[in-house]
Protein backbone atom coordinates (compact mmCIF):
# COMPACT_ATOMS: atom_id res chain seq x y z
CA UNK A 1 0.00 0.00 0.00
CA UNK A 2 1.31 3.40 -0.93
CA UNK A 3 1.15 5.78 2.00
CA UNK A 4 0.13 9.36 1.48
CA UNK A 5 2.43 11.91 3.11
CA UNK A 6 0.63 15.00 1.86
CA UNK A 7 0.18 16.68 5.24
CA UNK A 8 3.75 15.92 6.35
CA UNK A 9 5.23 17.12 3.08
CA UNK A 10 3.21 20.33 2.96
CA UNK A 11 4.00 21.19 6.56
CA UNK A 12 7.68 20.47 5.94
CA UNK A 13 7.77 22.92 3.04
CA UNK A 14 6.54 25.68 5.35
CA UNK A 15 8.45 24.75 8.51
CA UNK A 16 11.76 24.12 6.71
CA UNK A 17 12.33 27.78 5.89
CA UNK A 18 11.42 28.89 9.40
CA UNK A 19 13.98 26.47 10.85
CA UNK A 20 16.66 27.57 8.41
CA UNK A 21 16.01 31.24 9.11
CA UNK A 22 16.11 30.54 12.83
CA UNK A 23 19.41 28.66 12.47
CA UNK A 24 20.93 31.61 10.56
CA UNK A 25 19.66 33.95 13.27
CA UNK A 26 21.25 31.78 15.98
CA UNK A 27 24.47 31.66 13.98
CA UNK A 28 24.79 35.43 13.51
CA UNK A 29 23.68 36.27 17.06
CA UNK A 30 26.37 34.08 18.62
CA UNK A 31 28.69 36.91 19.59
CA UNK A 32 26.28 38.78 21.87
CA UNK A 33 23.59 36.25 22.80
CA UNK A 34 23.57 32.45 23.28
CA UNK A 35 24.11 30.62 19.99
CA UNK A 36 26.92 30.39 17.48
CA UNK A 37 28.29 28.11 14.82
CA UNK A 38 27.73 24.80 16.59
CA UNK A 39 24.02 25.20 17.44
CA UNK A 40 23.39 26.97 14.14
CA UNK A 41 24.97 24.10 12.23
CA UNK A 42 22.97 21.50 14.15
CA UNK A 43 19.72 23.38 13.44
CA UNK A 44 20.47 23.60 9.73
CA UNK A 45 21.20 19.88 9.57
CA UNK A 46 18.00 19.34 11.54
CA UNK A 47 16.13 21.12 8.78
CA UNK A 48 17.73 18.95 6.09
CA UNK A 49 16.97 15.81 8.11
CA UNK A 50 13.32 16.90 8.32
CA UNK A 51 13.37 17.13 4.54
CA UNK A 52 14.78 13.61 4.38
CA UNK A 53 12.04 12.32 6.69
CA UNK A 54 9.25 13.92 4.69
CA UNK A 55 10.61 12.86 1.28
CA UNK A 56 13.30 10.26 0.71
CA UNK A 57 17.08 10.24 0.43
CA UNK A 58 17.12 10.21 -3.36
CA UNK A 59 14.80 13.21 -3.71
CA UNK A 60 16.77 15.20 -1.16
CA UNK A 61 20.06 14.50 -2.90
CA UNK A 62 18.44 15.76 -6.12
CA UNK A 63 17.31 18.96 -4.37
CA UNK A 64 20.68 19.44 -2.67
CA UNK A 65 23.34 17.78 -4.85
CA UNK A 66 26.07 18.28 -2.27
CA UNK A 67 28.91 16.06 -1.14
CA UNK A 68 28.80 16.74 2.58
CA UNK A 69 32.37 15.54 3.15
CA UNK A 70 33.53 18.46 1.01
CA UNK A 71 31.33 20.78 3.09
CA UNK A 72 33.11 19.62 6.25
CA UNK A 73 36.51 20.01 4.59
CA UNK A 74 35.59 23.50 3.38
CA UNK A 75 34.59 24.38 6.93
CA UNK A 76 37.97 23.18 8.20
CA UNK A 77 39.64 25.24 5.51
CA UNK A 78 37.72 28.36 6.65
CA UNK A 79 38.64 27.82 10.31
CA UNK A 80 42.24 26.87 9.54
CA UNK A 81 42.53 29.73 7.08
CA UNK A 82 41.32 32.27 9.63
CA UNK A 83 43.88 30.92 12.08
CA UNK A 84 46.68 30.87 9.53
CA UNK A 85 45.76 34.31 8.21
CA UNK A 86 47.50 35.75 11.25
CA UNK A 87 50.79 34.46 9.81
CA UNK A 88 50.69 37.12 7.10
CA UNK A 89 50.45 39.96 9.62
CA UNK A 90 53.16 38.54 11.92
CA UNK A 91 50.88 38.39 14.94
CA UNK A 92 50.30 35.22 17.04
CA UNK A 93 48.15 32.59 15.45
CA UNK A 94 44.36 33.05 15.67
CA UNK A 95 44.68 36.72 16.57
CA UNK A 96 41.41 38.17 15.30
CA UNK A 97 40.79 41.54 13.70
CA UNK A 98 37.60 43.56 13.93
CA UNK A 99 36.23 46.93 12.93
CA UNK A 100 33.25 48.92 11.78
CA UNK A 101 32.49 48.88 8.09
CA UNK A 102 30.00 51.05 6.23
CA UNK A 103 28.10 48.58 4.09
CA UNK A 104 25.87 49.82 1.21
CA UNK A 105 22.48 48.72 2.52
CA UNK A 106 23.07 47.68 6.14
CA UNK A 107 24.93 50.84 7.08
CA UNK A 108 27.46 50.87 9.94
CA UNK A 109 28.14 47.20 10.78
CA UNK A 110 30.57 45.66 13.27
CA UNK A 111 32.54 42.89 11.54
CA UNK A 112 34.87 40.44 13.26
CA UNK A 113 37.05 37.68 11.75
CA UNK A 114 35.80 35.35 14.51
CA UNK A 115 32.61 35.13 12.41
CA UNK A 116 34.59 33.52 9.58
CA UNK A 117 35.97 31.02 12.08
CA UNK A 118 32.43 30.40 13.27
CA UNK A 119 31.29 29.92 9.70
CA UNK A 120 33.94 27.19 9.49
CA UNK A 121 32.49 25.55 12.61
CA UNK A 122 28.99 25.86 11.10
CA UNK A 123 30.03 24.13 7.88
CA UNK A 124 31.93 21.37 9.69
CA UNK A 125 28.93 20.63 11.91
CA UNK A 126 26.54 20.53 8.93
CA UNK A 127 28.98 18.43 6.90
CA UNK A 128 29.72 15.91 9.65
CA UNK A 129 26.11 15.51 10.82
CA UNK A 130 24.80 15.06 7.30
CA UNK A 131 27.60 12.62 6.40
CA UNK A 132 26.73 10.48 9.42
CA UNK A 133 22.99 10.52 8.69
CA UNK A 134 23.47 9.90 4.98
CA UNK A 135 25.93 7.00 5.35
CA UNK A 136 23.81 5.25 7.95
CA UNK A 137 20.61 5.98 6.01
CA UNK A 138 21.90 4.64 2.70
CA UNK A 139 23.52 1.59 4.29
CA UNK A 140 21.74 -1.62 3.32
Amino acid sequence: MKTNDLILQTTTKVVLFIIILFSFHIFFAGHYTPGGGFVGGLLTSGAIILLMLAFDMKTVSQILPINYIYIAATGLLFAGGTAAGALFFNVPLLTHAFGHVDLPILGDTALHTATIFDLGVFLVVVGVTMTIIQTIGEDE
Partner: protein
Amino acid sequence: MINFLILPLLIPFLTGILLIFFAKNVVIQRWIAAISALFNVVIAFLLVQKVRNDGIQTLDVSSWQAPFGITLVSDMLSALLVLTTTIIAFTSIIYSFRSIGVEREKYFYYPALNFLIVGVIGAFTTGDIFNLFVFFEVLLMASYVLLVLGGTKIQLRETIKYILVNVISSALFVIAVAYLYSVVGTLNMAHISVRLDDLGQSGIITVIAVLFLIVFGLKGGIFPLYFWLPGSYYAPPAPVMALFGALLTKVGVYAIMRTYTLFFIHDTGYTHQLLMILTIITIVVGVIGAIAFSDIKKIIIYNIIVAIGVILFGVSVMTPDSLTGSVFYLIHDMVIKAALFLLIGIMIAITGTSDLRKISGLIRRYPGLGWTFFIAALVLAGIPPFSGFVGKVLIVKGGFESEQFWGAGIVLASSLLVLFSIMKIFINGFWGTPQDYKGETNVPVRKLLIAPVILVTISVLYGVGSEIIFPYISQAAETLANPSVYIEAVLKEW
Protein backbone atom coordinates in the same frame (compact mmCIF):
# COMPACT_ATOMS: atom_id res chain seq x y z
CA MET B 1 58.79 35.05 12.81
CA ILE B 2 56.87 34.63 16.05
CA ASN B 3 54.60 31.88 14.74
CA PHE B 4 57.44 29.56 13.83
CA LEU B 5 56.77 26.93 16.48
CA ILE B 6 53.20 26.34 15.24
CA LEU B 7 54.28 25.51 11.68
CA PRO B 8 55.01 21.80 12.29
CA LEU B 9 51.42 21.53 13.52
CA LEU B 10 49.81 23.75 10.90
CA ILE B 11 51.41 22.06 7.89
CA PRO B 12 49.94 18.56 8.43
CA PHE B 13 46.61 20.14 9.45
CA LEU B 14 46.25 22.07 6.19
CA THR B 15 47.62 19.10 4.22
CA GLY B 16 45.05 16.81 5.81
CA ILE B 17 42.22 19.16 4.82
CA LEU B 18 43.56 19.53 1.29
CA LEU B 19 43.83 15.75 0.88
CA ILE B 20 40.11 15.29 1.63
CA PHE B 21 39.36 17.06 -1.68
CA PHE B 22 41.59 14.64 -3.60
CA ALA B 23 40.23 11.51 -1.93
CA LYS B 24 39.70 9.55 -5.15
CA ASN B 25 42.96 10.49 -6.85
CA VAL B 26 45.54 8.32 -5.14
CA VAL B 27 48.58 9.56 -7.08
CA ILE B 28 47.99 13.22 -6.22
CA GLN B 29 47.34 12.25 -2.59
CA ARG B 30 50.68 10.44 -2.39
CA TRP B 31 52.62 13.34 -3.86
CA ILE B 32 51.01 15.97 -1.64
CA ALA B 33 51.37 13.84 1.51
CA ALA B 34 55.02 12.99 0.87
CA ILE B 35 56.14 16.50 -0.10
CA SER B 36 54.41 18.18 2.81
CA ALA B 37 55.80 15.59 5.24
CA LEU B 38 59.33 16.14 3.91
CA PHE B 39 58.87 19.91 4.14
CA ASN B 40 57.69 19.45 7.72
CA VAL B 41 60.87 17.55 8.61
CA VAL B 42 62.90 20.55 7.42
CA ILE B 43 60.74 22.97 9.41
CA ALA B 44 61.01 20.84 12.56
CA PHE B 45 64.78 20.68 12.13
CA LEU B 46 64.95 24.47 11.89
CA LEU B 47 62.78 24.70 15.00
CA VAL B 48 65.25 22.55 16.94
CA GLN B 49 68.07 24.85 15.84
CA LYS B 50 66.04 27.90 16.85
CA VAL B 51 65.37 26.50 20.33
CA ARG B 52 69.05 25.61 20.61
CA ASN B 53 70.14 29.17 19.76
CA ASP B 54 67.41 31.31 21.33
CA GLY B 55 66.13 29.19 24.23
CA ILE B 56 62.55 28.10 24.89
CA GLN B 57 60.05 29.37 22.33
CA THR B 58 56.58 30.36 23.51
CA LEU B 59 53.57 31.60 21.60
CA ASP B 60 50.53 33.16 23.26
CA VAL B 61 47.83 32.12 20.82
CA SER B 62 45.35 34.91 19.94
CA SER B 63 47.67 37.46 21.62
CA TRP B 64 46.23 36.79 25.08
CA GLN B 65 48.73 37.03 27.95
CA ALA B 66 50.20 33.80 29.30
CA PRO B 67 47.97 32.33 32.02
CA PHE B 68 44.74 33.52 30.38
CA GLY B 69 45.05 32.28 26.84
CA ILE B 70 46.41 29.05 25.44
CA THR B 71 50.19 29.13 25.34
CA LEU B 72 52.19 26.87 23.06
CA VAL B 73 55.62 26.05 24.42
CA SER B 74 58.47 24.56 22.48
CA ASP B 75 61.33 23.67 24.78
CA MET B 76 64.14 21.40 23.62
CA LEU B 77 62.34 18.22 24.66
CA SER B 78 59.20 19.00 22.70
CA ALA B 79 61.16 20.32 19.70
CA LEU B 80 63.21 17.10 19.52
CA LEU B 81 60.10 14.97 19.84
CA VAL B 82 58.41 17.00 17.10
CA LEU B 83 61.40 16.44 14.82
CA THR B 84 61.32 12.70 15.53
CA THR B 85 57.58 12.61 14.88
CA THR B 86 57.92 14.33 11.52
CA ILE B 87 60.67 11.91 10.44
CA ILE B 88 58.55 8.89 11.41
CA ALA B 89 55.54 10.41 9.64
CA PHE B 90 57.53 10.89 6.44
CA THR B 91 58.92 7.35 6.42
CA SER B 92 55.52 5.83 7.19
CA ILE B 93 54.00 7.76 4.31
CA ILE B 94 56.57 6.61 1.76
CA TYR B 95 56.30 3.05 3.08
CA SER B 96 52.51 3.21 2.66
CA PHE B 97 52.78 3.83 -1.11
CA ARG B 98 53.73 0.22 -1.79
CA SER B 99 52.09 -1.57 1.09
CA ILE B 100 48.77 -0.15 2.22
CA GLY B 101 46.72 -0.83 -0.92
CA VAL B 102 44.66 1.50 -3.12
CA GLU B 103 41.37 0.57 -1.43
CA ARG B 104 42.49 1.99 1.90
CA GLU B 105 44.19 4.97 0.26
CA LYS B 106 40.91 5.97 -1.37
CA TYR B 107 39.09 6.00 1.96
CA PHE B 108 40.89 8.92 3.59
CA TYR B 109 44.01 7.07 4.74
CA TYR B 110 46.37 10.01 4.20
CA PRO B 111 44.06 12.64 5.73
CA ALA B 112 43.66 10.46 8.84
CA LEU B 113 47.43 9.96 9.00
CA ASN B 114 48.00 13.72 8.79
CA PHE B 115 45.44 14.42 11.52
CA LEU B 116 47.18 11.82 13.70
CA ILE B 117 50.41 13.77 13.25
CA VAL B 118 48.58 17.01 14.11
CA GLY B 119 47.42 15.45 17.37
CA VAL B 120 50.83 14.07 18.30
CA ILE B 121 52.71 17.29 17.51
CA GLY B 122 50.05 19.35 19.27
CA ALA B 123 50.31 17.20 22.40
CA PHE B 124 54.09 17.66 22.39
CA THR B 125 53.87 21.43 21.89
CA THR B 126 51.01 22.59 24.07
CA GLY B 127 51.46 24.40 27.38
CA ASP B 128 47.89 24.05 28.57
CA ILE B 129 46.55 20.98 30.32
CA PHE B 130 43.09 21.06 28.75
CA ASN B 131 44.56 21.75 25.34
CA LEU B 132 46.66 18.64 25.92
CA PHE B 133 43.41 16.73 26.39
CA VAL B 134 42.03 18.13 23.14
CA PHE B 135 45.12 17.10 21.20
CA PHE B 136 44.95 13.67 22.83
CA GLU B 137 41.44 13.36 21.44
CA VAL B 138 42.57 14.55 17.99
CA LEU B 139 45.23 11.85 17.81
CA LEU B 140 42.93 9.20 19.30
CA MET B 141 40.11 9.91 16.83
CA ALA B 142 42.57 9.66 13.94
CA SER B 143 43.99 6.46 15.41
CA TYR B 144 40.50 4.92 15.63
CA VAL B 145 40.08 5.59 11.92
CA LEU B 146 43.50 4.19 11.02
CA LEU B 147 42.94 1.14 13.20
CA VAL B 148 39.56 0.21 11.71
CA LEU B 149 40.24 1.28 8.11
CA GLY B 150 39.97 -1.78 5.88
CA GLY B 151 37.31 -3.42 8.01
CA THR B 152 38.74 -6.91 8.47
CA LYS B 153 37.33 -8.97 11.31
CA ILE B 154 40.30 -8.68 13.64
CA GLN B 155 40.47 -4.92 13.10
CA LEU B 156 36.80 -4.48 14.02
CA ARG B 157 37.17 -6.57 17.16
CA GLU B 158 40.31 -4.84 18.39
CA THR B 159 39.01 -1.37 17.52
CA ILE B 160 36.03 -1.90 19.81
CA LYS B 161 38.35 -2.76 22.70
CA TYR B 162 40.69 0.12 21.88
CA ILE B 163 37.91 2.70 21.67
CA LEU B 164 36.32 1.43 24.88
CA VAL B 165 39.58 1.70 26.84
CA ASN B 166 40.41 5.12 25.44
CA VAL B 167 36.95 6.57 25.99
CA ILE B 168 37.17 5.54 29.64
CA SER B 169 40.67 6.92 30.05
CA SER B 170 39.66 10.18 28.34
CA ALA B 171 36.75 10.53 30.75
CA LEU B 172 39.18 9.99 33.62
CA PHE B 173 41.44 12.64 32.08
CA VAL B 174 38.59 15.17 32.14
CA ILE B 175 37.81 14.25 35.74
CA ALA B 176 41.48 14.62 36.72
CA VAL B 177 41.67 18.04 35.03
CA ALA B 178 38.44 19.06 36.80
CA TYR B 179 39.91 18.09 40.18
CA LEU B 180 43.13 19.93 39.44
CA TYR B 181 41.23 23.00 38.24
CA SER B 182 39.12 23.07 41.39
CA VAL B 183 42.30 23.02 43.50
CA VAL B 184 44.54 25.46 41.61
CA GLY B 185 42.04 27.44 39.50
CA THR B 186 44.17 27.56 36.35
CA LEU B 187 44.86 25.41 33.30
CA ASN B 188 48.14 26.85 32.07
CA MET B 189 50.83 24.29 32.90
CA ALA B 190 53.43 26.78 34.08
CA HIS B 191 50.83 28.59 36.17
CA ILE B 192 49.64 25.31 37.70
CA SER B 193 53.23 24.60 38.68
CA VAL B 194 53.51 28.00 40.41
CA ARG B 195 50.21 27.53 42.25
CA LEU B 196 51.18 24.01 43.37
CA ASP B 197 54.44 25.44 44.63
CA ASP B 198 52.48 27.86 46.83
CA LEU B 199 50.14 25.15 48.10
CA GLY B 200 52.80 22.58 48.87
CA GLN B 201 51.83 18.92 48.63
CA SER B 202 48.54 18.40 50.39
CA GLY B 203 46.77 15.04 50.28
CA ILE B 204 44.41 15.96 47.44
CA ILE B 205 47.32 16.85 45.17
CA THR B 206 48.87 13.44 45.70
CA VAL B 207 45.51 11.91 44.78
CA ILE B 208 45.42 14.01 41.61
CA ALA B 209 48.99 12.97 40.82
CA VAL B 210 48.02 9.30 41.04
CA LEU B 211 44.90 9.97 38.94
CA PHE B 212 47.06 11.54 36.24
CA LEU B 213 49.37 8.53 36.43
CA ILE B 214 46.39 6.24 35.84
CA VAL B 215 45.19 8.34 32.89
CA PHE B 216 48.53 8.66 31.14
CA GLY B 217 49.46 5.12 32.13
CA LEU B 218 46.40 3.89 30.24
CA LYS B 219 47.42 5.91 27.20
CA GLY B 220 51.08 4.95 27.49
CA GLY B 221 50.70 1.32 28.50
CA ILE B 222 52.40 0.86 31.90
CA PHE B 223 51.67 -2.06 34.23
CA PRO B 224 48.83 -2.87 35.08
CA LEU B 225 47.15 -0.67 32.47
CA TYR B 226 48.86 -2.11 29.39
CA PHE B 227 46.34 -4.96 28.91
CA TRP B 228 44.69 -3.45 25.80
CA LEU B 229 47.96 -2.78 23.99
CA PRO B 230 49.13 -6.19 22.67
CA GLY B 231 45.78 -6.96 21.05
CA SER B 232 45.08 -3.54 19.58
CA TYR B 233 48.52 -3.04 18.07
CA TYR B 234 48.35 -6.48 16.52
CA ALA B 235 45.43 -5.63 14.24
CA PRO B 236 46.40 -2.80 11.81
CA PRO B 237 48.70 -3.03 8.77
CA ALA B 238 52.46 -2.40 9.15
CA PRO B 239 52.80 1.39 8.53
CA VAL B 240 49.91 2.11 10.89
CA MET B 241 51.46 -0.24 13.44
CA ALA B 242 54.73 1.68 13.11
CA LEU B 243 52.97 4.99 13.73
CA PHE B 244 51.12 3.59 16.74
CA GLY B 245 54.11 1.84 18.25
CA ALA B 246 56.44 4.78 17.74
CA LEU B 247 54.16 7.70 18.54
CA LEU B 248 50.98 6.98 20.48
CA THR B 249 52.35 5.37 23.61
CA LYS B 250 55.19 7.89 23.64
CA VAL B 251 52.68 10.74 23.93
CA GLY B 252 51.49 9.16 27.17
CA VAL B 253 55.10 8.78 28.30
CA TYR B 254 55.78 12.42 27.44
CA ALA B 255 52.70 13.51 29.41
CA ILE B 256 53.89 11.57 32.48
CA MET B 257 57.36 13.11 32.06
CA ARG B 258 55.88 16.59 31.85
CA THR B 259 53.46 16.34 34.75
CA TYR B 260 55.85 14.47 37.04
CA THR B 261 58.68 16.94 36.52
CA LEU B 262 56.61 20.14 36.39
CA PHE B 263 53.59 19.64 38.67
CA PHE B 264 54.00 16.91 41.25
CA ILE B 265 57.50 17.46 42.59
CA HIS B 266 56.80 18.17 46.24
CA ASP B 267 56.05 14.72 47.61
CA THR B 268 58.25 12.54 45.44
CA GLY B 269 58.57 10.00 48.25
CA TYR B 270 55.08 8.74 47.46
CA THR B 271 54.28 9.54 43.82
CA HIS B 272 57.66 8.84 42.27
CA GLN B 273 58.14 5.73 44.39
CA LEU B 274 54.83 4.46 43.06
CA LEU B 275 55.88 5.29 39.50
CA MET B 276 59.18 3.48 40.04
CA ILE B 277 57.56 0.29 41.31
CA LEU B 278 55.10 0.29 38.40
CA THR B 279 57.83 0.86 35.82
CA ILE B 280 59.95 -1.98 37.17
CA ILE B 281 57.00 -4.37 36.97
CA THR B 282 56.30 -3.00 33.46
CA ILE B 283 59.82 -3.93 32.37
CA VAL B 284 59.47 -7.43 33.83
CA VAL B 285 56.07 -8.02 32.21
CA GLY B 286 57.37 -6.66 28.91
CA VAL B 287 60.39 -8.98 28.74
CA ILE B 288 58.29 -11.97 29.78
CA GLY B 289 55.96 -11.24 26.87
CA ALA B 290 58.85 -10.60 24.49
CA ILE B 291 60.54 -13.94 25.14
CA ALA B 292 57.33 -15.94 25.51
CA PHE B 293 55.83 -15.37 22.07
CA SER B 294 56.99 -16.82 18.79
CA ASP B 295 54.93 -14.33 16.80
CA ILE B 296 57.08 -11.55 15.39
CA LYS B 297 54.47 -8.81 15.83
CA LYS B 298 53.89 -9.77 19.46
CA ILE B 299 57.63 -9.77 20.19
CA ILE B 300 58.04 -6.20 18.94
CA ILE B 301 54.84 -5.09 20.69
CA TYR B 302 56.08 -6.38 24.05
CA ASN B 303 59.38 -4.61 23.40
CA ILE B 304 57.40 -1.34 23.33
CA ILE B 305 56.22 -2.10 26.85
CA VAL B 306 59.79 -2.80 28.01
CA ALA B 307 60.97 0.52 26.57
CA ILE B 308 58.15 2.45 28.27
CA GLY B 309 59.23 0.93 31.57
CA VAL B 310 62.87 1.86 31.00
CA ILE B 311 62.10 5.47 30.02
CA LEU B 312 59.76 6.06 32.94
CA PHE B 313 62.17 4.42 35.37
CA GLY B 314 64.63 7.16 34.43
CA VAL B 315 61.92 9.76 35.07
CA SER B 316 60.99 8.32 38.45
CA VAL B 317 64.61 8.43 39.68
CA MET B 318 64.71 12.20 38.98
CA THR B 319 68.46 12.73 38.91
CA PRO B 320 69.87 14.93 36.11
CA ASP B 321 71.68 11.90 34.67
CA SER B 322 68.66 9.65 34.57
CA LEU B 323 66.46 12.39 33.05
CA THR B 324 69.04 12.95 30.31
CA GLY B 325 69.11 9.19 29.75
CA SER B 326 65.33 9.06 29.55
CA VAL B 327 65.15 11.79 26.91
CA PHE B 328 67.92 10.13 24.91
CA TYR B 329 66.29 6.72 25.17
CA LEU B 330 62.83 8.08 24.33
CA ILE B 331 63.96 9.48 20.97
CA HIS B 332 66.05 6.39 20.22
CA ASP B 333 63.11 4.16 20.95
CA MET B 334 60.65 6.08 18.78
CA VAL B 335 62.93 5.80 15.73
CA ILE B 336 63.95 2.18 16.16
CA LYS B 337 60.45 0.89 16.97
CA ALA B 338 59.14 2.48 13.80
CA ALA B 339 62.00 0.87 11.84
CA LEU B 340 61.37 -2.57 13.37
CA PHE B 341 57.64 -2.48 12.66
CA LEU B 342 58.31 -1.53 9.05
CA LEU B 343 60.89 -4.33 8.75
CA ILE B 344 58.61 -7.03 10.14
CA GLY B 345 55.93 -5.60 7.87
CA ILE B 346 58.13 -6.57 4.92
CA MET B 347 58.77 -10.02 6.43
CA ILE B 348 55.03 -10.58 6.82
CA ALA B 349 54.42 -9.34 3.28
CA ILE B 350 56.94 -11.86 1.92
CA THR B 351 55.96 -14.89 3.98
CA GLY B 352 52.25 -14.18 4.50
CA THR B 353 52.49 -15.14 8.15
CA SER B 354 53.74 -13.64 11.39
CA ASP B 355 54.37 -17.04 12.97
CA LEU B 356 58.11 -17.39 13.50
CA ARG B 357 57.97 -21.18 13.25
CA LYS B 358 56.82 -20.98 9.64
CA ILE B 359 59.59 -18.61 8.53
CA SER B 360 63.20 -19.50 7.82
CA GLY B 361 66.14 -18.74 5.57
CA LEU B 362 65.09 -15.27 4.45
CA ILE B 363 68.64 -13.96 4.33
CA ARG B 364 69.56 -16.06 1.30
CA ARG B 365 67.11 -14.22 -0.96
CA TYR B 366 66.82 -10.92 0.87
CA PRO B 367 70.27 -10.04 2.23
CA GLY B 368 69.45 -6.32 2.37
CA LEU B 369 66.42 -6.97 4.55
CA GLY B 370 68.36 -9.39 6.72
CA TRP B 371 71.30 -7.16 7.51
CA THR B 372 69.12 -4.10 8.06
CA PHE B 373 67.15 -6.13 10.55
CA PHE B 374 70.35 -7.32 12.22
CA ILE B 375 71.61 -3.76 12.70
CA ALA B 376 68.19 -2.67 13.94
CA ALA B 377 68.26 -5.52 16.47
CA LEU B 378 71.67 -4.46 17.78
CA VAL B 379 70.49 -0.84 18.00
CA LEU B 380 67.39 -1.89 19.92
CA ALA B 381 69.30 -3.91 22.47
CA GLY B 382 71.80 -1.13 23.07
CA ILE B 383 75.06 -2.65 21.90
CA PRO B 384 77.72 0.09 21.89
CA PRO B 385 78.27 2.23 19.82
CA PHE B 386 74.61 2.15 18.79
CA SER B 387 72.01 4.51 20.17
CA GLY B 388 70.27 2.31 22.73
CA PHE B 389 73.52 2.25 24.67
CA VAL B 390 74.00 5.87 25.77
CA GLY B 391 70.48 6.34 27.07
CA LYS B 392 70.46 3.13 29.04
CA VAL B 393 73.90 3.78 30.53
CA LEU B 394 72.73 7.14 31.83
CA ILE B 395 69.51 5.71 33.23
CA VAL B 396 71.39 2.91 34.99
CA LYS B 397 73.99 5.38 36.27
CA GLY B 398 71.25 7.60 37.65
CA GLY B 399 69.64 4.56 39.25
CA PHE B 400 72.84 3.47 40.98
CA GLU B 401 73.63 7.03 42.10
CA SER B 402 70.31 7.29 43.91
CA GLU B 403 70.84 3.75 45.26
CA GLN B 404 67.99 2.10 43.41
CA PHE B 405 70.04 -1.04 42.87
CA TRP B 406 67.13 -3.37 42.16
CA GLY B 407 65.56 -1.10 39.58
CA ALA B 408 68.81 -0.31 37.79
CA GLY B 409 69.76 -3.98 37.87
CA ILE B 410 66.49 -4.97 36.26
CA VAL B 411 66.97 -2.31 33.56
CA LEU B 412 70.39 -3.85 32.82
CA ALA B 413 69.08 -7.41 32.82
CA SER B 414 66.18 -6.43 30.57
CA SER B 415 68.64 -5.46 27.80
CA LEU B 416 69.90 -9.01 27.68
CA LEU B 417 66.42 -10.47 27.35
CA VAL B 418 65.43 -7.86 24.76
CA LEU B 419 68.50 -8.86 22.76
CA PHE B 420 67.50 -12.50 23.14
CA SER B 421 63.92 -11.87 21.98
CA ILE B 422 64.97 -9.90 18.92
CA MET B 423 67.80 -12.29 18.00
CA LYS B 424 65.26 -15.08 18.16
CA ILE B 425 63.54 -13.43 15.19
CA PHE B 426 66.84 -13.02 13.36
CA ILE B 427 68.13 -16.54 13.96
CA ASN B 428 64.86 -18.38 13.32
CA GLY B 429 63.59 -16.15 10.56
CA PHE B 430 66.70 -15.34 8.55
CA TRP B 431 68.99 -18.32 9.10
CA GLY B 432 68.13 -21.90 8.25
CA THR B 433 66.92 -23.48 5.05
CA PRO B 434 65.30 -21.14 2.51
CA GLN B 435 61.64 -21.77 1.78
CA ASP B 436 59.26 -20.85 -0.99
CA TYR B 437 56.38 -18.62 -0.01
CA LYS B 438 53.20 -18.07 -1.92
CA GLY B 439 53.08 -14.64 -3.58
CA GLU B 440 56.51 -13.49 -2.49
CA THR B 441 57.45 -12.41 -6.02
CA ASN B 442 54.76 -9.72 -5.93
CA VAL B 443 56.33 -7.96 -2.97
CA PRO B 444 58.44 -4.91 -3.99
CA VAL B 445 61.01 -5.54 -1.25
CA ARG B 446 63.56 -2.99 -2.48
CA LYS B 447 61.05 -0.16 -2.62
CA LEU B 448 59.59 -1.07 0.76
CA LEU B 449 63.05 -1.21 2.25
CA ILE B 450 63.73 2.50 1.61
CA ALA B 451 61.77 3.73 4.64
CA PRO B 452 63.23 1.36 7.27
CA VAL B 453 66.74 1.90 5.89
CA ILE B 454 66.31 5.67 6.38
CA LEU B 455 65.19 5.10 9.96
CA VAL B 456 67.94 2.62 10.79
CA THR B 457 70.54 4.99 9.30
CA ILE B 458 69.23 7.86 11.44
CA SER B 459 69.29 5.55 14.44
CA VAL B 460 72.89 4.49 13.83
CA LEU B 461 73.99 8.09 13.28
CA TYR B 462 72.15 9.07 16.44
CA GLY B 463 74.23 6.57 18.40
CA VAL B 464 77.57 7.11 16.68
CA GLY B 465 77.18 10.89 16.68
CA SER B 466 75.90 11.10 20.25
CA GLU B 467 78.80 13.47 20.99
CA ILE B 468 77.24 16.03 18.63
CA ILE B 469 73.66 15.41 19.72
CA PHE B 470 74.36 15.36 23.43
CA PRO B 471 74.19 19.17 24.02
CA TYR B 472 70.65 19.14 22.62
CA ILE B 473 69.61 16.26 24.86
CA SER B 474 71.12 17.78 27.98
CA GLN B 475 69.38 21.07 27.20
CA ALA B 476 66.11 19.13 27.05
CA ALA B 477 66.80 17.37 30.34
CA GLU B 478 67.77 20.66 32.00
CA THR B 479 64.21 21.95 31.60
CA LEU B 480 62.89 18.75 33.15
CA ALA B 481 65.28 18.84 36.10
CA ASN B 482 64.71 22.54 36.69
CA PRO B 483 61.07 23.53 36.09
CA SER B 484 61.69 27.21 36.90
CA VAL B 485 63.29 27.57 33.45
CA TYR B 486 60.01 26.47 31.88
CA ILE B 487 57.90 28.68 34.16
CA GLU B 488 60.00 31.77 33.51
CA ALA B 489 59.81 31.25 29.76
CA VAL B 490 56.00 31.04 29.83
CA LEU B 491 55.04 33.52 32.53
CA LYS B 492 57.42 36.33 31.71
CA GLU B 493 56.81 38.66 34.67
CA TRP B 494 56.44 36.02 37.40
